[in-house]
């Protein structure tokens, strides 16, 4: 049976990590199901009592989401429209019970191809801040998650926060998820979109990411570039082609066939684009 530590400040947590190897516990919503009925033998470092790891704050250069921020925290926070996609994803994570416990860091560290947090965070150009007893480092989320269940997080590191570079008030976003039932469902496919436009209504930045259709959620960079300079208005989705989607690499599994995933992803991207440019959405 392993040790269990529940420090109340980050320094204590880091001191802990200097001795022996520790498995990090956050909301436990990935940890416990994976554990099943096997006895817990690892040393567990529970981060949920460390206040500085939780919560959302605006910094000079953007936004900081503490790693232990729960999906419910995201839903309740008052945030610019650029975060609507992330909020929509948060509302789609499992159920209220899961949203109340599950955390952003847990979601990205678990590195499931179907992690709902990934596409919106990729569309927001998120960066991951890691901390270890030997210091901190930051890397783009794209580099952080390296494959199915694999990340760049070293055993002596933990995810302290996820940073989002400053967003403009004109940024619009959307997230759509497809599953085989209404609640508590793992995505068959999902798409997140972030659109910035100038005073003339022309697109100045587009970020589009698709999840559940490749080992790690993936941006559609070709499409993003093609949308630059286009009108951020209804009809935008007509620019999407099958070729944009072909960079994805979905699998066949119990939830859906690969070819269906591709066609669904394409449709979701179209719809998410239309939703993001739908007029009448004002900052709240």
């Amino acid at each position: 049976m392993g040790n269990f530590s529940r420090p109340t400040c980050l320094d204590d947590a880091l001191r802990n990590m200097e001795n022996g190897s520790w498995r990090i516990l956050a909301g436990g919503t990935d940890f416990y199901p994976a554990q099943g009925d096997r006895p817990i033998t690892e040393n567990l470092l529970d981060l949920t009592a460390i206040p500085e790891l939780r919560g959302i704050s605006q910094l000079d250069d953007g936004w900081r989401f503490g790693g232990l921020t729960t999906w419910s925290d995201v839903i309740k926070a008052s945030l610019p429209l650029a975060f609507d996609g992330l909020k929509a994803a948060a509302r789609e994570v499992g159920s209220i019970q899961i949203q109340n416990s599950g955390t952003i860091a847990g979601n990205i560290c678990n590195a499931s191809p179907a992690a709902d947090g990934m596409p919106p965070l990729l569309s927001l150009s998120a960066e991951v801040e890691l901390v270890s007893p030997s210091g901190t480092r930051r890397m783009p989320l794209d580099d952080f998650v390296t494959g199915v269940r694999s990340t760049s997080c070293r055993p002596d590191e933990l995810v302290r926060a996820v940073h989002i570079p400053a967003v403009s008030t004109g940024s619009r976003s959307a997230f759509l998820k497809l599953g085989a039932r209404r609640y508590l469902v793992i995505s068959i496919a999902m798409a997140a979109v972030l659109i910035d436009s100038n005073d003339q209504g022309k697109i100045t930045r587009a970020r589009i990411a698709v999840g559940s259709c490749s080992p790690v959620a993936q941006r559609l960079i070709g499409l993003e570039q093609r949308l630059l300079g286009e009108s951020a208005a209804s009809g935008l989705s007509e620019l999407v082609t099958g070729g944009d989607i072909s960079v994805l690499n979905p699998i066949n599994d119990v939830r859906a066939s690969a070819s269906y995933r591709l066609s669904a992803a394409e449709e979701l991207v179209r719809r998410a684009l239309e939703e993001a440019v739908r007029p009448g959405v004002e900052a709240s």
Partner: protein
Amino acid sequence: MNGGIELSFSLNGEPQNVMAPPAERLTKLLRERLGKTGTKVGCDAGDCGACTVLVDGDPVCACMMASAQVNGRTVTTIEGLAANGSLSKLQQSMLHHGAAQCGICTPGMIVSAAALLEKTSTPNEDEIMDALGGVLCRCTGYRKIIRAVMDAPEFAEAPQRSNSGAAVGARLNRVDGDAKVKGTELFAADAGFANSLLIRAIRSPYHRAGFRFGDLKSYVSAHPGVECVLTAEDIPGRNLFGVIPPFADQPVFAEQETRFRGEAVAAVVGDTEAIEALDLSNFPVEWEELPHTLLPSDALEETAPQLHENRPGNQMTSGLVRCGDQEAGFRQSAATVKGRFSTGYIEHAYIEPEAGAARRVGNRVEIKVCTQAPYMNRDDIAAILGIAPEQVRIMPTAVGGGFGSKLDLSTHPFLAIAAWKLDRAVRMVYTRPESMASTTKRHPSEITAKIAATQDGKLCAMEFEGIFNTGAYASWGPTVANRVPVHASGPYHIPNYSARSLGVHSNGPVSGAFRGFGVPQSAIAQESLFDELADALAVDRLEFRINNALENGIPTVTGQVFDQGCGAKKCLETLRGRWQSARTNAATFNANSKNTGRRRGVGLSGLWYGCGNTSLPNPSTIRVGLRDNGTLVLFSGAVDIGQGANTVIAQICADAVGLPVEAMVFVNDDTDLTPDAGKTSASRQTFISGKAAFLAGENLREKLLRFANVSNEARLALDGTSLTASEGDATHRIDLASLAIDNEGFVALGEGTFDPPTSPLDENGQGNPYAAFGYGAQMVELEVDEALGTVKLLKLTAVHDVGRAINPTLIEGQIEGGSAQGIGLALMEEFIPGRSENLHDYLIPTIGDVPPIESIILEEPDAFGPYGAKGLGEHVLVATAPAILNAIRDATGATIRNLPATPDKVRSAIVAVQTQQVSDEAG
């Protein structure tokens, strides 16, 4: 983590200080250390929400929370919601609406709803769905839960009472409902004996495998606290069981070879802590994976591995019903349609995994277990232990959903053998994956059918062949094989008919009983083809069905002619107006260009279902007695698995006696205390045990009338320890204490036994298999998103002929809950052995997947049933899936014949139609 750390927190308003291992799941702390068993465990993985508790007011799954995380916080469980023991408004509203059936999901529902109501006192339907979306219910279909939560803030209705003689037809609260909404009901994992050892089973990881144990003795001695390992060698009697004695073929522990993934080879027994500390993957057993088959087509190959020596070719059994002249029938046809249909394994997915407890008392063994068939279990266990049935006592706990699977043995034999051998109390609780891998499923089916009709729209011939994958062991496979050919015609007159069924063994999970015994599968084929046939003849799909529906005096395909009680046609006719307007609404929607890409459709299905065993005796006995202290005691062994048997039987019996349900106390389901009321399956408890309850009540009434020397017109009443009988102006008062009592303390005891009249089927399947059928018709309105292939159900309308609605609330509950299972069957459910052994990958409908349901109760009384009542439990599931498939086809033209109709299958069927249209236009 031995001994753990000290945790202090507030639990339901009371401070708690407890030592507990910090990483232990909060469910365990609450249930096992603090005795708060109202918090349930259905999956230990976040998938069912049964374990929902409030931490600082917010709902979380206690099964995924480290106990240490509640330190210094406030925790509220279901036990904290009934202030001073009296029900909250929410609990009263849940009870009133029949929103708790089996009750296993109820604590999680109520706790989640309470958190919502703290925030919003007038929640709308969407808010309720969002708040309860994380709690699965397999019984209710959720609609009554939504209603109950909506009504909760203002709830002020007093429970209905069953004045003498007026219980039948009344919307009484469930007689066992209080405990369910309070969370005090004891389910199998909650009930046990003090100082129990724990049992865990070692199961095959392969579909078929040889195995060799290592050194079991040293394994035991290397693990202090482990008492023993049980294997086939430890079985005192026979290592064999099965629900149908001539087909008994399943071992408790496999010998030499396992036949399916999840089959047990051994069990470890020991102190709870020692057993829980075991990593069972280190158990000393060596497996050798062997060639296997999972599909009948493979199992029927000559070279396929043979599962049972006495069943050559892996053929278990077959069924046949034949009437008229096939060839002549098809020759008359103006239109003929045919098709191949398939369905996969369907998991019952009750929220309560199997569990139980046992102890040895002298030369007897007592077993507390969740079961649908206490007497059958008793006899099987006696044979396994090599003792007389009377030496076994089955004491059913509350059952957290069964739907057919809890007829078969699960934990019972392990419990019985361990308790017998060790002379210690023992308990066993299946994990969710263990439950899903090792217990029975709905039979996968492969059906081909061909149906023809004449120019005037009359069915003239049908040919049906169904292959049912019964898996590794027979279980209820023979029942499916018998039932399907009788029912495959649907509730229609088909003069020339031939239906064959074949049960085939494979190395898949054991297929057993699941609501409908194969009939839902056959109805999918038959009702889908009916729409195509009506279209081919260019007649209205509903009128086509009405034109062919059974009525009194018209023979069924087994040649049975009912001169009363057949409501098939009336059920369909009831839909006429609604069908027309639903069709018009859908057409208007589809014609609107704003709705491009979304298509609405309407689908129909009829249904019928025979109540009770097929051509086999299945008697029930019920007793009711009056004590000298004025209590009326009802002895019923008809197990209530949530469907409401306890309440229905009480209502029937109370009216037969002429005294109110409120005067009754209940002795339920104990093979030592209650007479045999058969199994809870085949929709027989209302019809058969209900009739026995009626006869028992009448029997008691006669005796009571005799005390007062009054006629049957007299009104009876209880007043303390007096019984009054009033007739005209005269009232007789009998002091019960002055009457002689029997050795059980009764002044009078009534007993009733009923066995419905049936006759055996001849070699062509002709005869009277059931004393009564129940009938129904359902209509589904839905919308298909053409690009994604997703289906949104808009409304379900369900008409059911129940003979007599003993309790309309319970009937609606059955309709809504059964239909929800039909929705799952149609749209999302398929169990894949080894891949979907959890509720994460095996999807059942959530609260957001069940549309509003309009239940229309039709009462075409049956001469045999109590007060005219027929069965209903299984019927409700039969029509839903075909109606959904027909509505998808109505909306899009897409036919789906391999279930479930997941978005990818719907999408590819739509693409196929569009491609066809393009090539038609081109050609």
